[in-house]
């Protein structure tokens, strides 16, 4: 677990360039080249520091302070020899790591060869599960996995370095840059070759994984053949076959997972190569114009920075360096119905208090309506009975009677409408209308003379 102590020592583990970083690397190189012995003195350190300062055009750093910083992690005093030091194992390993990272031997080595060297499965090569474990067991392949990862990392580093160089072209002088682009085309041709190598490597890996899966299936088949084991001997064989299959499956899963991560990294590299190649072609086409434009933009930015200052936390541009204007109309919704606002709306439940008065009123209305309907039905039934018994029915007289009894013209109207409809739909009755006005006795209403007449004997 990380703790404060580790954080506090962090800076001591990675010294800054002029605070000992360059010194360690130079000392390591000099010792390696036999220019210095494994033990060196304070004077040697001072000389190396002066050399570094001269090379980088910087002031000479204080040797005492730097030695104090580097002591323990990078430098150690030689016991019984005052003023003599040696590089710690950590310092040597760090320098070696840097050297390895910068001069990765895999940069020029085809990936397919690494794949073939470490991940190949020949016919009949694996006879027992021990053979498989020794060749591809987790602890046995960890080194091979690291090599493949280093190899891929080297490819990525190479690509990044090329990007940086290409970006340098963009800010370089036009004439030089044009010739440099030509050189870089060659670099990218190499990347094309790398892309091809990667494709071959993937095919080799797919082949390997297929064989490994087939071999794992064979272990399963062995266990499957023994599934009906009855004798003790067979049962113990079954148990061993099952255990073998389990181990083979673990190895298969482990390597499948590893190659999946390899695939992801390789895909990333391929994508970058393709993009960069496209850019390079584009760059060659309009290089001079773009380079010139880029140069002008840099100058403009430089001018802007030199005309800017910070006053009370606010940046100000002097001598009227122009700040540009852009369209920025505040949002106005002219056609809100066509606009999906996508605003989150909150639902609120409002509890409405009970209005007893309104409730009563509505209840009375409903009851009245129901009662009216009942009365209408009653009159319709009565009228039909009358029609059957008498064979004819005078609608104005009927309505008059209803109005007199119920004091409601609407009921009379409804009954009349229902009966007229009944007569119209029923072939045994006919509706006779004489266009002669006749007034109702109990209401100020005039009607034509209407009579429903039975045409033949009817049974309801």
């Amino acid at each position: 677990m990380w703790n404060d102590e580790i954080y506090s020592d962090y800076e001591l583990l990675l010294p800054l360039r002029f605070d000992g970083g360059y010194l360690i690397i130079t000392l390591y190189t000099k010792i390696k080249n036999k220019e210095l012995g494994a033990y060196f003195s304070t004077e040697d350190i001072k000389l190396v520091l002066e050399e570094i300062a001269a090379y980088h055009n910087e002031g000479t750093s204080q040797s005492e302070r730097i030695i104090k910083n580097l002591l323990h992690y990078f430098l150690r005093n030689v016991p019984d020899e005052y003023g003599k030091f040696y590089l710690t194992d950590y310092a040597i390993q760090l320098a070696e790591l840097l050297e390895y990272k910068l001069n990765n031997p895999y940069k020029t080595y085809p990936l397919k060869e690494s794949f073939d060297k470490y991940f190949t499965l020949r016919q009949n090569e694996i006879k027992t599960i021990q053979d498989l474990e020794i060749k591809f067991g987790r602890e046995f392949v960890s080194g091979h996995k690291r090599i493949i990862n280093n190899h891929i990392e080297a490819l990525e580093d190479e690509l990044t370095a090329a990007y940086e160089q290409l970006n340098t072209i963009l800010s370089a002088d036009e004439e030089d840059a044009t010739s440099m682009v030509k050189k870089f085309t060659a670099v990218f041709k190499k990347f094309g070759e790398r892309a091809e190598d990667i494709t071959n490597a993937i095919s080799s890996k797919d082949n390997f994984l297929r064989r490994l899966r087939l071999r794992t299936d064979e272990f399963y088949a062995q266990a499957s053949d023994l599934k009906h084991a009855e004798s003790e001997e067979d049962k113990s064989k079954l148990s061993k076959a099952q255990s073998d299959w389990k181990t083979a499956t673990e190895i298969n899963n482990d390597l499948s997972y590893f190659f999946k991560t390899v695939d992801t990294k390789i895909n990333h590299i391929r994508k970058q190569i393709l993009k960069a190649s496209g850019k390079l072609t584009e760059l060659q086409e309009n290089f001079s114009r773009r380079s010139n434009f880029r140069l002008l933009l840099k100058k403009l930015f430089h001018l802007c920075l030199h005309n800017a200052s910070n006053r009370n936390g606010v940046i100000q541009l002097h001598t009227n360096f122009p700040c540009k204007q852009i369209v920025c109309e505040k949002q106005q919704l002219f056609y809100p119905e066509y606009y999906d606002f996508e605003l989150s709306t909150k639902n609120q439940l409002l509890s409405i208090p009970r209005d007893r008065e309104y409730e009563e009123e509505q209840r009375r209305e409903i009851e009245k309506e129901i009662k009216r309907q009942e009365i209408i039905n009653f009159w319709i039934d009565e009228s039909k009975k009358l029609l059957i018994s008498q064979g004819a029915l005078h609608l104005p007289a009927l309505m008059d009677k209803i109005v007199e009894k119920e004091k409601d013209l609407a009921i009379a109207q409804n009954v009349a409408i229902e009966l007229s409809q009944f007569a119209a739909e029923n072939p045994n009755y006919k509706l006779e209308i004489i266009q002669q006005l006749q007034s109702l006795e109990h209401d100020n209403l005039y009607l034509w003379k209407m009579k429903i007449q039975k045409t033949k004997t009817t049974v309801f």
Partner: protein
Amino acid sequence: MENEDPKNEDYSFLEEDRMKMYFADLNIKLLSGRHLQSDEYNLFTILGDYYDEFKSFYNNLYKLNLVRDTYDNSVYYYLDFFEGSKGKLTDPSRIKTLTEWQTVAGLMLLDMYYSRYFEDPKQIKWQDIKYEIEAGDKKETYQSLFFKSVRTGFTPNEWTEVEKKFRNTVQSFHELGWVNKVSGQNEELLFELKPSIHRIARLYEKELLNFQDFVSHFKTALEQ
């Protein structure tokens, strides 16, 4: 660059079904200064399909120029003023002037776009900006501009203050469609530079075309 396009006043294209769905969004975004690119697929496609019609529409009704620009093989659309005119948006509240901070940060991000020319996507983390300020080529200028002094180290509070300002700038550029902010509120600032950030260069096109005159104008102003 004047509005000399023929006056096509046929706006029947606005009756298309697609317009009912997207016009309001498109219009609001363009008028609010947004630069529309292919990542806003529906609006981008409509603008592509009816570019001439929309150009006349904004020219006739707003006196604004709908521009289709291409940079880094990517097309983007935006509304611009015609030279010497603010169209129908003469009210100052309808115009956005980039602040000094935005101008500096914008030119800085444009510079970073070029330095990542071969990368895709061009992602920028707060650490990248911090590195430029701490150890980049222009570290002294940046430090005196953002911290008012050139030192080897700055306090966490000072960094927080500068980071906050960059966050705000990135947010406003995100709204303009120049960058795509990927990080959330409480995460380390992370965003992608979009090709439309090239609009900043377009804004200074006149100055860049006559750069020597522009510089000599400055020299004269400084000497006075």
